[in-house]
């Protein structure tokens, strides 16, 4: 009962903040609302007995990734007039996008409500997870069943860091040669 009430409140906050992300004119407000969206999603993860994911959501998403976004917004120093001009190059894009989005959400709702989701039940019920501990289980699976994707993820992050540095650095050496 309490979980249902909390779900309704948090779901409403999430949807309203997500709408604000899309419809705010100033990108910094969009970033702030996106942080709120992610934090309320973390609450939903706790309701679904995924405590570790909730903590990671707050630290990685609301912390690290959004700091990156806010830094870039500050670095570029955009004011809204020179980004979203009054003119529209693609005249029918906005109304058709909204209509298509409405159709998409109706279709997702109909399909979800009419489908009985079945699958082989796993061994980790909320009771057994709380006995072992959510984080311990995630760690155990990361280093046994999913150890290969885990190593691939480290290579991916390394490549991303290198790529970000190379793309964003100033071309000082080239300027000196000229």
């Amino acid at each position, binding site marked *: 009962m309490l*979980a*249902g009430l909390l779900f309704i409140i948090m779901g409403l906050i*999430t*949807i309203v903040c*997500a709408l604000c*992300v*899309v419809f705010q004119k100033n*990108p910094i407000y969009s970033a702030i609302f*996106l942080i709120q*969206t992610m934090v309320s*999603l973390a609450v939903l993860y706790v309701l679904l*007995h*995924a405590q*570790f*994911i909730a903590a*990671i*959501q707050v630290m*990685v*998403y609301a912390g*690290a*990734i959004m700091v*990156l*976004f806010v830094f*870039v*917004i500050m670095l*570029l120093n*955009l004011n809204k007039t*020179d*980004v*979203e*001009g009054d003119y529209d*190059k693609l005249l029918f*894009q*906005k109304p058709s*996008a*909204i209509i*298509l*989005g409405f159709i998409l959400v109706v279709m*997702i709702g109909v399909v*979800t409500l009419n489908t009985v*989701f079945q*699958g*082989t*039940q*796993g061994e980790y*019920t*909320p009771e057994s*997870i709380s006995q072992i501990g959510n984080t311990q289980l*995630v760690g155990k*699976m990361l280093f046994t*069943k999913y150890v290969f*994707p885990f190593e691939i*993820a480290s290579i*991916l*992050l390394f490549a*991303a860091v290198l790529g*970000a540095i190379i*793309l*964003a650095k*100033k071309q000082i050496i080239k300027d000196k040669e000229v």
Partner: protein
Amino acid sequence: MILLTWYLILSGVLFTIGAVGVLIRRNAIVIFMCIELMLNAVNLAFVTFARQLNSMDGQIFVFFIMTVAAAEAAVGLAIIIAIYRNKATVNVDNINLMKW
């Protein structure tokens, strides 16, 4: 488990908001934020199914999606900075160098 259906619908609504945002906004940074929104919606669906099937695999997948999202955000924002340095705009209508 009627409540889990509503989690899935919430996930679908969030995904749709993100998709519509990508289509109607012209600011490249906001488009990136909408992509993050869609990734979050997918994460919510994964966690919901993990809860419903009493399995941990969905939560592990969310972990990997977050890794990919972090990498994507870093590289994408670096690309936006590089574009801004060259063209002094982040309006995606004006970034049409590769348009045929």
